[in-house]
């Protein structure tokens, strides 16, 4: 009905003015313009932007400055680890164990019954060792964002490759690849990741790799189902009839046209993986103390839940907000990329 009138995208061959009115409804710019119209997606984008910025600053302040301070030129300038924090915020203090942590400038507070939140010095209070919760959350952001993106990236790239090849060729290739993926899927997720880390090492890197590998089937199945329908489109056959090689058909036609749901899933998956790796850290299989990670903060707070619930609540809120941010953007992208809605 409504399409009856809109299907004939109008313009006269020689009508130069009408030409400019026809909007291109594909490509990055169009997708962004669609996202911009969607308030929830914008909220998601804002949250992700904020957390990413925080993560970048934290990364620069800790890792980058630590490396730079080893170079004479920068050391002479006074560059050192936590330079920004020291200048504008708190000074680090050496723990007896030798690890650096951030502390308020005015010494330790009561370790077992830390401050209530809301003081000027510690807006979110301090933890059981008197460490400032806000600063630990701040530096924990980079871990959350990194693990989310890296683990999803691994899953997305490998999953897309596996799924696209399986879907395009079909037959025994499909059978072999997809049965393998399903085998992976059949093992309980956490058991798989924990077994992987037990075998290779209990640190963040293997947590990311493990979670990435364990989520390959999600992406492989998703893109395969899209490829199966894209493969039947006439333009694929047209490319074959034109003599285009299979490899180029997959890369230039099949994957780009199957990618929209993968992108949506990837955005959602970043949030999920942040949650999973926080969970692993909670279990002791992720970031090791004293590295400030949200999951590990949650883990160490659990003994103090009654006397000081804030200690658990703040990392929980940080995880929640970040995950919700990715979910909102994912939903917004789903709408923006959905061809049915566009038409």
């Amino acid at each position, binding site marked *: *009905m*409504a399409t*009856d*009138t*809109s*299907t*004939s995208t*109008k*313009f*006269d*061959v*020689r009508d130069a003015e009408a030409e400019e009115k026809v909007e291109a409804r594909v490509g990055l710019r169009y997708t962004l313009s669609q996202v911009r119209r969607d308030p929830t997606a914008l909220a998601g984008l804002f949250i992700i932007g904020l957390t990413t910025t925080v993560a970048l600053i934290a990364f620069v302040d800790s890792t980058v400055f630590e490396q730079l301070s080893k170079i004479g030129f920068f050391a002479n300038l006074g560059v050192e680890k936590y330079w920004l924090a020291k200048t504008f915020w708190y000074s680090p203090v050496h723990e007896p164990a030798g690890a650096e942590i951030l502390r308020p400038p005015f010494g330790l507070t009561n370790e077992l019954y830390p401050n209530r939140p809301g003081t000027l010095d510690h807006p979110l209070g301090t933890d059981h060792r008197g460490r400032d919760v806000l600063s630990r959350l701040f530096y924990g952001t980079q871990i959350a964002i990194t693990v989310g993106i890296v683990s999803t990236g691994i899953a997305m790239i490998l999953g897309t490759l596996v799924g696209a090849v399986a879907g395009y060729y079909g037959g025994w290739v499909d059978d072999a690849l997809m049965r393998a993926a399903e085998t992976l899927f059949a093992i309980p997720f956490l058991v798989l990741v924990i077994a992987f880390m037990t075998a290779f090492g209990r640190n963040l890197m293997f947590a990311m790799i493990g979670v990435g590998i364990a989520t390959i089937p999600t992406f492989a199945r998703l893109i395969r189902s899209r490829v199966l329908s894209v493969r039947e489109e006439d333009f694929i056959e047209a490319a074959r009839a034109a003599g285009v090689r299979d490899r180029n058909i997959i890369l230039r036609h099949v994957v780009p046209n199957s990618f929209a749901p993968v992108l949506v899933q990837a955005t959602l998956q970043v949030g999920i993986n942040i949650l999973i790796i926080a969970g692993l850290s909670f279990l002791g299989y992720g970031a090791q103390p004293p590295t400030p990670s949200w999951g590990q903060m949650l883990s160490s707070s659990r003994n103090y839940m009654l006397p000081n619930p804030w200690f658990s609540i703040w990392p929980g809120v940080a995880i929640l907000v970040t995950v919700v941010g990715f979910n909102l953007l994912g939903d917004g992208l789903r709408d923006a990329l959905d061809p049915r809605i566009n038409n």
Partner: protein
Amino acid sequence: MSEPLLTVENLQTQFFTEEGVVRAVDGISFEVNEGEIVGLVGESGAGKSVATSSIMRLVENPGEVVGGTVRYRDEVLVGFEEGPDGERRRSPEMLSEAEMRTRIRGREIAIIFQDPMESLNPVFKVGDQLREFIEINREVSKAEAREIAVDMLREVGIPEPEERYDDYPHQFSGGMRQRVLIAMALACEPNLIIADEPTTALDVTVEGQILDLVRDLQAKYGTSFIWVTHDMGVVAEICDRVNVMYLGEIVEQAEVDDLFYDTKHPYTEALLRSIPRPDQTVEELNPIEGVMPEAINPPPGCRFHTRCPDAREVCRRAHPAYQDVTGDEPPHRVSCVKYEDVGYEDSDPLETAATGAFGGGLVEARGESDE
């Protein structure tokens, strides 16, 4: 001539989209007499389907019937009146949605769609769908309804109707499914059937079977039809009178023979000249140049002037009146300034896609430019 069965006057339907108001149907008028097959013909985007769903009041958001009258016998299906502040509002005579559902749709006016697969629910047996429809609309018992359903299936030429009753839609061929829909449409013995491109999805031999069937059934039951199609061949084959639509308007209305042999509107004429013939060899086709503009921003004056081979300056300014040009009964109505006294004869020819230098639709070939 007796009172027409259905009268459509100045019907207007608009779609309120983000880009603006689409005037999909813009003031069409026609009537359907008892036992008559009236064609509604036009290219895609002309507004044929919107017109029929407006008559049935089945236009969905963001579309809305915004003006005009549709009268079925004594019932007002669509009616508007002036409110106290001069705004247009629904007239109190207009049937309520519930009345449309219980009294009109299915019982008095039935509709057959183009795609029979979409109109049948794939998870229910064909016979049961037909039976349920009869049960609801004719207030008969289940057993009676079943009997009527089997009879109807036989009537529309379904082989082994008793056995096929228990089949699912996917077990039927396209032509058979369309027969089932015709059975469903006929089941409540309506006075008017709106057929929306019912044979477009079918093969030519099956289309022939269906057209034959419709003609037989029409002779038997005296049902009137509004036959929506884009195929001039089908029009010639089955219609008594024809309305030609272009961009939301009816541009010509005539008896089928007059439409083909005494064509008045340049669009109809161009359309007839552009189709290849199965019964004779045509060396060169004469296409209509250009593309139908969008209804969101129709050309001023006559809507066809941008593609019209006879377009003159005046066509851009004057919106042609839709009027009878022969004075005979039944009337032959045309909407073209040629038949008006607005100075067409003295107007300068207009440079359009059709009249300009770009004849033939192909930019002049310039020899061996490649290799």
